[in-house]
């Protein structure tokens, strides 16, 4: 955190000075470890074993926060009798279909309740099953069977206990390389810092997410924090340290394939032609806040299609495209490499360096008809046709690359108005300081004027489904000689307004499903309350109390800590005087506190829903997790996740160890791309690639370097690509500090300087010494400082839930000196791997469990 979010780390130092203990779990001793109280080196890819061990410790030693868990989580709920755990099926849950490599979550449901709709995650799983076949019974969620004594073998608590029972400190030491005394010290410190009086917080970044089990890493931390009662309380929770200025914003208002603004799922091709009614039925939860979903969908459609959206045409729902599978980044690029994609628009991103397997990306770009790149400078993605290793080697000639490339210079954040959403969900407005020079324009300008041109083109010569484009509302006021669209007008549409008089709504509570309101993104509704640009508010923090609600605007409804109802006990009194945050104010008959209460304002803690309650009325007075169907924190996820209701330790795609806990080596639902130009190493113990590689960032550069490699004040601080190795590995391979080394995998090879340091400690695992090589990934072939990009080494393999790649744990080989023959890579058909050793390759899956598809199942094209 001190490496990539130094100013956020200010508050960790502040906490430390106020008595907090800072524990840093990381394969490397980084600048965070330098000032932490305890550094715990861990083998990359084994975090679930570590966190699972903590969960087991908390349960076995009775350190869990009993009152919190009993009332606020689904610990007491009974699960369907057909459910089988990984303990029973050697590392698999019940319901795995080996033909499609996916789980059917039917057997994970609560007993007697079918199709519980999750607050987030994959709803279409339920929808898919529920489409027209099984009527949804989520409504009788109130009749779910529970056992408050938590003794029933099929209650969530017992299932959880049994699931992690084998994650003993000894197993953790074997799997993660963490000595037992150190593990126990971490466990004890965490337990001592939880409970009524004290809270503990987790901070993580892509070190957790970029794994083939990434989402389950976060789930394990959520379970642990729920057991310790740290969610929804000040100084608790799980903080994602996101790496881009508005990456949170780009998932709330998503330039993502599977979501509509406000985390509404994109419609799926299984819907009937008139799909709105079935879409709402599939994704609406009869209980909890998601029951309000229809208002948000209709308001979104009204915002997009304006008057053309009428009740008769389902508010224009059928104009929307529908998904037929996974259209994530890696699927798109592999399709592109097969020549199926014609045009590609890349805005403010540099995939050939930032994404995995850069050479496969360049192969895809060469197959395009046309490419549009918008950035500050000519990045590798813009220059793939003339500065790339394969061109330097002469394998590919520039003249033979047919792609037409447009490069548009972009305006900087000081040259345009707009809002970023930071990692605490806080929208902050940045004002334009000066006019952009030359042809630089903002991406708002580019999109608006592209849209105007397309509307004109489709008005002249209509194409298929042209009415969708014609119906789109696109008349934003523009100002200035460049005709810059007014960003506040767009914000007003995002906030939502009543269609009749165009007055901005005060929040999503005012939205209706009768077409009388329009709202671009329901979770952002309220960001333009009373016609005031709330994100632009700048009341100095010295003039308001520590929650600082009048600086910027947090979604939803300017709430700064989510689920803060849980900071009060079931009767609405704060758990502790020290950690008071939100409590029930009996006189006023409403919730109050330092923050906007995350609960129905006037619902007393004593309220219990009547059996026939519907929608929000089903939320009891002690249900803090109002987005969930049952209002409880999910220790056990009956639906929403594609790879299991409980996190399970699986080894990365390419590991150095056999899975010590289960015969099933890797995540059965993982996504693989079996292509000749995306070869994988052996599952474990590959003699040609004996070392673990993990990638990371440095303070001085920014992600793929697009905003730092061109700046001399930053490049002089970290001028060259280097690898960090331990003195023991350096001695073993003859690596010399400051000199060169070549790192190779089956995908590619890179050259880099060597930094020999004791901060990369070899781990003792299963009696073997295990070396890790650290690779920052900021450099590439263009820019003021240059170097080899680490992402050339990384394969296409992804987590099933969010299709994020696994770039934090893979295997590679390293040799002293500069041995790369022109940065060869697998995409040019060159067999980089030495011949396969004679022994049969170890299995990643139990026999007969998983079939390897040549390509992930996507539909053929005309």
């Amino acid at each position, binding site marked *: 955190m001190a490496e990539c979010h130094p100013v956020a780390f200010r508050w960790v130092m502040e906490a430390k000075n106020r008595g907090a203990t800072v524990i840093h779990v990381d394969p490397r001793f980084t600048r965070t470890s330098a000032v932490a109280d305890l550094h715990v080196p861990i083998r990359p890819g084994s975090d679930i074993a570590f966190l699972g061990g903590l969960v087991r410790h908390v349960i076995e030693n009775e350190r869990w926060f009993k009152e919190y868990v009993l009332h606020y989580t689904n610990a007491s709920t009974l699960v369907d009798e057909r459910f089988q755990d990984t303990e029973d099926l050697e590392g698999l849950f019940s319901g795995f279909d080996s033909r499609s490599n996916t789980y059917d979550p039917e057997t994970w449901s609560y007993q007697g309740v079918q199709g519980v709709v999750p607050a987030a995650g994959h709803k279409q799983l339920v929808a898919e099953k529920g489409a027209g076949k099984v009527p949804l019974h989520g409504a009788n969620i109130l009749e779910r069977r529970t056992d408050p004594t938590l003794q029933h073998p099929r209650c969530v608590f017992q299932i959880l206990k049994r699931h992690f029972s084998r994650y003993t400190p000894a197993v953790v030491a074997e799997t993660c390389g963490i000595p037992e005394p150190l593990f126990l010290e971490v466990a004890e410190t965490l337990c001592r810092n939880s409970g009524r009086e004290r809270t503990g917080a987790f901070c993580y970044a892509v070190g957790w997410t970029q794994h083939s089990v990434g989402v389950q890493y976060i789930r394990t931390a959520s379970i642990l924090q729920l057991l310790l009662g740290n969610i929804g309380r000040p100084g608790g929770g799980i903080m994602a340290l996101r790496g881009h200025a508005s990456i949170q914003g780009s998932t709330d208002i998503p330039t993502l394939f599977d979501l509509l603004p406000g985390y509404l799922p994109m419609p799926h091709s299984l819907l009937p032609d008139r799909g709105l009614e079935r879409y709402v039925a599939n994704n609406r939860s009869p209980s909890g806040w998601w029951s309000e979903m229809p208002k948000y969908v209709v308001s979104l459609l009204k915002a997009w299609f304006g008057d053309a959206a009428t009740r008769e045409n389902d508010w224009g729902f059928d104009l929307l495209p529908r998904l037929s599978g996974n259209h994530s980044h890696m699927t798109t690029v592999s399709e592109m490499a097969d020549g199926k994609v014609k045009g590609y628009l890349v805005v403010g991103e540099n995939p050939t360096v930032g994404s995995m397997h850069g050479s496969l990306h360049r192969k895809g770009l060469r197959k395009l008809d046309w490419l549009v790149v918008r950035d500050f*400078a*000519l990045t590798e993605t813009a220059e793939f046709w003339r500065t790339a290793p394969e061109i330097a080697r002469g394998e590919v000639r520039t003249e033979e690359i047919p792609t037409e490339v447009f490069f548009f210079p972009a305006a900087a954040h000081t040259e345009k108005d707009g809002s970023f959403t930071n990692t605490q969900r806080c929208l902050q407005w940045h004002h334009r300081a*000066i006019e952009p*020079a030359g042809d630089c324009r903002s991406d708002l300008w580019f999109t608006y004027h592209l849209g105007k041109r397309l509307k004109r083109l489709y008005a002249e010569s209509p194409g298929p489904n042209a009415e969708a484009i014609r119906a789109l509302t696109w008349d934003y006021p523009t100002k200035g000689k460049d005709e810059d669209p007014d960003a506040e007008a767009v914000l007003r549409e995002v906030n939502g307004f009543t269609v009749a008089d165009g007055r901005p709504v005060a929040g999503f509570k005012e939205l209706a499903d009768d077409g009388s309101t329009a709202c671009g993104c329901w979770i952002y509704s309220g960001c333009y309350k009373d016609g005031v640009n709330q994100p632009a508010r700048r009341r100095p923090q010295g003039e308001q109390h520590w929650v600082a609600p009048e600086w910027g605007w947090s979604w939803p409804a300017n709430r700064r800590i989510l689920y803060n109802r849980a900071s009060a006990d079931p009767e609405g009194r704060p758990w502790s005087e020290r950690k008071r945050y939100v409590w029930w104010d009996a006189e006023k008959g409403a919730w109050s506190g330092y923050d906007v209460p995350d609960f129905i304002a006037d619902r007393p803690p004593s309220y219990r829903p009547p059996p026939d309650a519907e929608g929000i009325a089903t939320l009891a007075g002690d249900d803090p997790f109002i987005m969930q169907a049952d209002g409880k924190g999910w220790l056990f996820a009956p639906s929403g996740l594609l790879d299991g209701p409980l996190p399970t330790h699986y080894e990365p795609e390419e590991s150095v160890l056999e899975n010590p806990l289960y015969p099933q080596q890797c995540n059965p639902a993982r996504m693989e791309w079996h292509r000749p130009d995306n070869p994988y190493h052996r599952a474990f113990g590959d003699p040609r690639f004996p070392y673990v590689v993990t990638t990371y960032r440095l303070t001085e550069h920014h992600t793929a370097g697009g905003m730092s490699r*061109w*700046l*001399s004040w930053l490049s*002089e601080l970290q001028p060259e690509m280097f690898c960090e190795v331990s003195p023991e590995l350096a001695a073993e391979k003859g690596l010399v500090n400051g000199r060169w080394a070549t790192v190779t995998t089956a995908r590619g090879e890179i050259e880099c300087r060597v930094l020999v340091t004791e901060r990369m400690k070899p781990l003792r695992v299963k009696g073997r010494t295990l070396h890790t090589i650290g690779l920052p990934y900021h450099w590439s072939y263009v*820019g*003021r400082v240059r170097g080899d990009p680490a992402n050339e080494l990384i394969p296409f393999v992804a987590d099933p839930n969010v299709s994020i790649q696994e770039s934090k744990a893979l295997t590679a080989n390293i040799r002293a000196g500069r041995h790369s023959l022109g940065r060869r890579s697998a995409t040019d058909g060159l067999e980089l791997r030495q011949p396969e050793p004679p022994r049969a390759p170890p299995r990643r899956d139990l026999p007969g469990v998983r079939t390897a598809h040549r390509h992930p199942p996507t539909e053929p094209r005309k």
Partner: protein
Amino acid sequence: MDAMDPLRRETALRDGRNVDPEVGRLTGEASGQRASPRLAAAALARAEREAAPADEAEGPSYHGLPVLKEPVWRWMIPAYFYTGGLAGACGVLGAAAQLAGGRGTWPLVRRCRAIAVGGAVASAGFLIADLGRPARFLAMMRVFRPTSPMNMGTWVLATFGALSGAAALPALLPAPRPLRRAADAAGIAAGVVGLPLVGYTGVLLANTAVPVWQETRNTLPMLFAFSGAVSAGAALDLWRPRGPGGEMARRFGLVAKGGELALSWALHREAGLERVERPLRRGASGALLRGARVLLGASAVVDLVRRASPALRIASGVLGTLGTLALRFGVVAAGHASARDPHATFALQRAGRGAADLARKGEAPGPMPAPRGIDATGQESVEHGANP
């Protein structure tokens, strides 16, 4: 490279800020600093190459990098030490001849005054040439700052230049009696001002943080004074005045050479610590200083045996001049080497020769309290947790 890419176009004019003037204005404190980043990177690479090998035997250091900055003066400064010393010494000799020389010393006095004013002008030339901004040489006389030997030296050199100029006027062109009497008075004054001129350069070097110069701060001024005398003697050997002046100059030079030799040995003793004294022995500076001693010795021997033959006189003058020049350049080179070596500074101060030195001499309050856990000799005391 295609000129279209702004990065390639702009690497030519690398001012290190890389800011587009239409979009950003550069008016900061150092926006006017002319700099070439390539040279800076080369300097860091060189410092890293020359870094002392990081072996703990010599005590801790930061990756062996120097703790001080190497003096930035070029060859013109030791050259100035020579010409300044020459001018000063000639001024003194001329005045002395005027006062106590009796009759027949006019040729010596005339030559001394000529050399003095020539040396002063040459000195000014060298000093200005070495300045980073020569056009601002007048800034040297902006303030009167007694703590700065260079400031004091500038006033001395200026006064000496003026006086020796005045004194030399009649020598160069016929002038009426009252003017000649004024010139004689100026000559005497120049002699008096010449005294500090010939010695202050030693104090100038001593007044730096460079270990070898700071440690030999008491020997250096005397060494430079006698070195000036030697250069004067040698110069007058080469340009021998008629009458008794030549003998006077020879004796003056001869004794000065003896003094210089003695003082150059005293230099080593005063340096004290081996690590501080090492540049006087080792490397280019050591060689120069040894060469200087050989040359001066030879010159003295030739002086002793030369009876009246002009060839030997010329040889002695040349040897003397080369000797004193070698000494000047040797001392300056020793300073450079000493500044580059971090352990010189650390060993010096750990041996109590830093500020603690003042305490012993009662000039400044209190000895250096060793930081907790580290006693004055630099070893970690047990209490700090060092392995006993």
